């Protein structure tokens, strides 16, 4: 082990060689013998009853092995897809969850909904055959506008008014009391735009049933293969867990969208037994747009109560959250427990009351997308804070500083107990890096060139390291959110780290190896990370919500420490010393006060040959496992400052400067962390300036390709100035907080605060396209003329 590869070193990613040389093994790279192909016939209508489904011609088409429908699922007693988090209404009653069959059973509920699957020798044959399926649709009204959904006609019979739940959090009476004392109330209406995840690798699946053993294998693009197996076994009923192996090989980006258990992989694994052949499906990009779970999509009204000194007294929030046509795997918790508990932001807010209605619409399901609830909360709080500062004539930095939480631990009025933080430190560093004091001069210079310059702040917080199992259980989660790890030491001292976390871009093969090599004092190349296969790793909850570091690595450390403890016992026998005298440091077990020592690898060999001890006193071998259940969320925070220049003639926004100061606690690999920050900001800027899913009134997805859906490109973004502060997390052994979502959470309000600053009024939607900003400039100009 050297300082170059230890914890804190910017080690180059071990996995990149195979990725950039085309040696990655993604699901679509895997081919099974005699593999057949699935094509899903999808609904062209947003909402329709299926009066008749005639598959007879398709069944006879060339190469077709099977045409399967919702009736076949029912006949095989295959259950529907589930939502794993129960939310209760204000009155204590449970949410209204409609059934979610993997193939339609009498009704389709969004464009792209799965009507039938055709399995054929080739993909083209499957697609050709699907054109021969005759569907008699009775078209029903689309439900697209959340504000009109209650009277639009039921999408699911269980929810006649299309309201899934009417939920709340916080103390209404205390909040009303705070508002009654207010000297100033700032009000804001916000839309958090709907996003389509667009991972580079589209979703894919191969189902492969082995009739010899009765074991199903599912290769799938998953962020959490064990959860997929659990759901497919225990709820969908494909096969018991010991007869179902789920492999999530290299996965090319997830951003949340590959957490969920979808219809396609369910059907592929089920159908592989029915047709007696492995069944492969790979989404094309249009299918990805139509059927990947979308993100965000909130309409909110918020009010902030201030006293006469500009101190915040209370916050009231009313949000409508679009959940789409079906409840996806974790959808219900995103606009509730991943959203409202973050509404305190970095601020000392004595009273908060939030109400959230989850709404069914005839659109693709909406679920967690990078940040999941936390970006929506941060956008709301950071927009209303900025507006409040402007309305009270306060400097936005000073206004934030005045209201920051300054002592820790801090209990917010909305569940969360922040263990630690230093918000002023991030703000100070960000102001310095952004050269805030000279902003006015820069604004003047821009004005001379006919440009509008603006500056926007975002002081964000997020809750990562999801999550203490008992706590989430009490809030309705159907699973525990611990993580597991196993350290297998080979006889010559190389190490395999088996983890329940899953890497789909995060670089775990590097950072986990860094941690283990550092801890064991061995070479980083002696450590391999194994993940993504339910046959290899006992169990795991997967990767999302920046939990791989705070939770996954904590489990690894626990297991490593058990290995060291066992190693000490082995070393005591081998070195003929008392166990209490054995020390472990820099990869060597030594006897205190002597020059007798053994390297880690030598002790491993002793453990396996077991010549120096007998099996009654000590078990041979060197392999330890651990489960780690966190005791709290972690609370990364930071301040991002965005500076924009707007061309009022076209409405084009140019981000001229981006300052990011983040407090992620301790950092394993600063290069990877900085990469996460860059990617997060790019996604956040995407939401703020470029991306917006748009359904028309008929429920057709207008933005179903890159012709209309704007992904961020390199030339949309500036170079980022990234700084870090560090107040280590106090509730996990590594002091890690997590960095995966920070940029995506911080960026949108920073951008919109900068644009609204530049154009001089608050009504700027996301995405703030040139057209939207031009309209805002027109309104701003009218306002200035009126003054």
């Amino acid at each position, binding site marked *: 082990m050297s300082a170059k590869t230890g914890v804190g070193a910017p080690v180059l990613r071990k996995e990149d060689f195979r990725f950039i040389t085309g040696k990655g093994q993604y699901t679509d790279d895997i081919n099974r013998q005699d593999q057949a192909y699935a094509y899903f016939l999808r609904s062209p209508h947003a909402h329709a009853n299926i009066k008749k489904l005639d598959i007879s011609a398709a069944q006879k088409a060339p190469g077709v092995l099977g045409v399967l429908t919702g009736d076949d699922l029912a006949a095989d007693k295959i259950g529907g897809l589930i939502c794993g988090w129960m939310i209760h209404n204000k009155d204590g009653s449970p949410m209204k969850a409609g059934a979610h069959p993997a193939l339609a059973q009498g009704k389709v509920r969004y464009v792209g909904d799965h009507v039938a699957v055709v399995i054929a020798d080739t993909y083209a044959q499957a*697609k050709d055959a699907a054109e021969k399926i005759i569907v008699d649709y009775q078209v029903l009204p689309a439900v697209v506008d959340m504000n009109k959904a209650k009277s639009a006609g039921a999408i699911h019979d269980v929810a006649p008014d299309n309201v899934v739940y009417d939920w709340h959090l916080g103390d209404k009476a205390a909040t009303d009391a705070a508002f009654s004392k207010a000297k100033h109330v700032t009000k804001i209406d916000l839309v958090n735009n709907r996003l389509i995840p667009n991972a580079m690798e589209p979703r894919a699946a191969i189902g492969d049933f082995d009739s010899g053993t009765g074991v199903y294998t599912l290769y799938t693009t998953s962020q959490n293969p064990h959860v997929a197996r659990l759901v497919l076994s225990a709820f969908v009923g494909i096969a018991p867990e010991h007869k179902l192996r789920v492999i999530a090989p290299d996965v090319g980006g997830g951003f949340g969208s590959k957490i969920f258990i979808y219809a396609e992989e369910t059907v592929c694994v089920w159908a592989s037994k029915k047709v007696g052949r492995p069944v492969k499906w790979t989404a094309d990009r*249009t299918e990805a747009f139509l059927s990947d779970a979308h993100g965000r999509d909130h309409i909110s009204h918020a009010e902030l109560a201030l006293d006469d000194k500009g101190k915040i007294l209370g916050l009231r929030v009313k949000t409508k959250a679009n959940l789409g046509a079906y409840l996806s795997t974790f959808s219900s918790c995103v606009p509730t427990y991943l959203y409202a508990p973050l509404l305190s932001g970095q601020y000392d807010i004595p009273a908060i009351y939030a109400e959230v209605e989850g709404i069914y619409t005839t659109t693709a399901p909406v679920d967690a997308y990078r940040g999941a609830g936390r970006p929506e909360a941060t956008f709301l709080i950071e927009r209303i804070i900025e507006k409040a500062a402007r309305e009270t004539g306060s400097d936005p930095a000073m206004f934030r500083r005045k209201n920051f939480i300054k002592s820790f631990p801090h209990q917010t009025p909305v569940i969360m107990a922040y263990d630690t933080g230093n918000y002023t430190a991030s703000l100070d560093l960000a102001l310095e890096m952004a050269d805030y004091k000279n902003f006015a001069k820069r604004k003047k210079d821009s004005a001379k060139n006919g440009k509008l310059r603006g500056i926007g702040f975002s002081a964000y917080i997020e809750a990562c390291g999801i999550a203490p199992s008992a706590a989430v259980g009490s809030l309705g989660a159907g699973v525990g959110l611990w993580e597991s790890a196993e350290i297998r030491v080979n006889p010559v001292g190389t190490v395999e780290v088996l983890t329940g976390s899953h890497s789909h871009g995060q670089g775990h093969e590097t950072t986990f190896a860094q941690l283990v090599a550092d801890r064991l004092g061995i070479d980083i190349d002696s450590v391999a990370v194994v993940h993504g296969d339910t046959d290899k790793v006992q169990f795991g909850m997967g990767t999302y919500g920046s939990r791989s570091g705070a939770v996954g690595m904590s489990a690894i450390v626990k297991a490593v420490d058990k290995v060291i403890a066992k190693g000490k016992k082995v070393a005591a026998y081998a070195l003929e010393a008392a166990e209490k005298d054995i020390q472990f440091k820099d990869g060597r077990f030594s006897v205190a006060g002597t020059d007798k020592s053994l390297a880690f690898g030598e002790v491993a060999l002793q453990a396996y040959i077991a010549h120096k001890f007998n099996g009654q006193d000590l078990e041979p071998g060197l392999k330890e496992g651990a489960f780690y259940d966190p005791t709290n969320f972690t609370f990364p925070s930071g301040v991002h400052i965005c500076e924009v220049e707007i061309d009022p*003639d*076209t*409405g084009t926004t140019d981000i001229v400067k981006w300052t990011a100061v983040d407090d992620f606690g301790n950092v394993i690999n600063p290069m990877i962390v900085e990469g996460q920050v860059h990617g997060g900001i790019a996604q956040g800027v995407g939401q703020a300036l*470029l991306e917006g899913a*748009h359904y028309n009134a008929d429920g057709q997805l*207008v*933005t179903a390709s*890159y*012709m*209309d*859906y*704007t992904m961020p490109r390199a030339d949309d973004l500036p170079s980022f100035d990234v700084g870090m502060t560090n107040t280590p997390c106090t509730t996990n052994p590594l002091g890690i907080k997590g960095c995966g979502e920070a940029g995506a959470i911080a960026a949108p309000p920073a951008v919109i605060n900068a644009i609204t600053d530049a154009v001089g009024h608050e009504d700027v939607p996301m995405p703030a*396209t*040139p*057209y939207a900003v*031009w*309209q805002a400039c027109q309104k701003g100009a009218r306002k200035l003329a009126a003054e």
Partner: protein
Amino acid sequence: MYAFNYHAPKTVRQAATLLAKNEEGKVLAGGQTLLPTMKQRLASPSALIDLNHAEGMTGIEQKGRNIVIGAMTRHVEVATSAVVKNAIPGLAALAEGIGDAAVRNRGTIGGSIANNDPAADYPSAALALNATIITNKRKITADEFFQGMFATALEEGEIIVKVSFPIPSKAAYEKFPNPASRYALVGVFVAKKGSDVRVAVTGAGSNGVFRSKECEAALASRFNAKALDGVKVAASGLNADMHASADYRAHLIPVMAKRAVEKATAK
């Protein structure tokens, strides 16, 4: 993609014969529109008549006071041509801004003009520069050639062979891209040749490329960016979609025209 027959004629004449024989056949040039459309099963020609092997359809030359470009000449060749850069730098710059490098390496000037996509760049250059479109049958002026969205004067079996651009005294193109596709939301090509000023607009019109009378009138007396100050373009007949209203497009036309004139008159 559905199955189709493939032909690779060696001459334009053979291509025309094949086109006549294959009623549902389509001419394949660079394939940057046709092939994606076929892949999405939105087009299903019975045959592709591939011009990529036909002789005499590529190349750029100056003939007197004209730049003549073979129909199968790729965008990248126009963008990097010393002849074009010298004679009509605005045309080279336009070609350099089409799509991305992959598109420019395959896409052709003839294909773009024949397709007449309402947001394509080349039609604006052809119209503003008063180009002549030379087919296997005749010569067609740009004013006659472009007949509305995806509609041209080309008849059955007619194939563009060359495009001839009179060399202007000043010309430039300015494009405001659709944020998603980066096609022209509004693209304006301005050209001055003698006392003749032509301003062609792509991307904005609901009926394809058109000439802006308002901008041309303002620039006729004085080919100067300031001449466009205060010029208003009517929004009627302009596209409206989720990316831009007709009003916004109308507003952008003189803005882009002004920037194009600034470019054309910059020394």
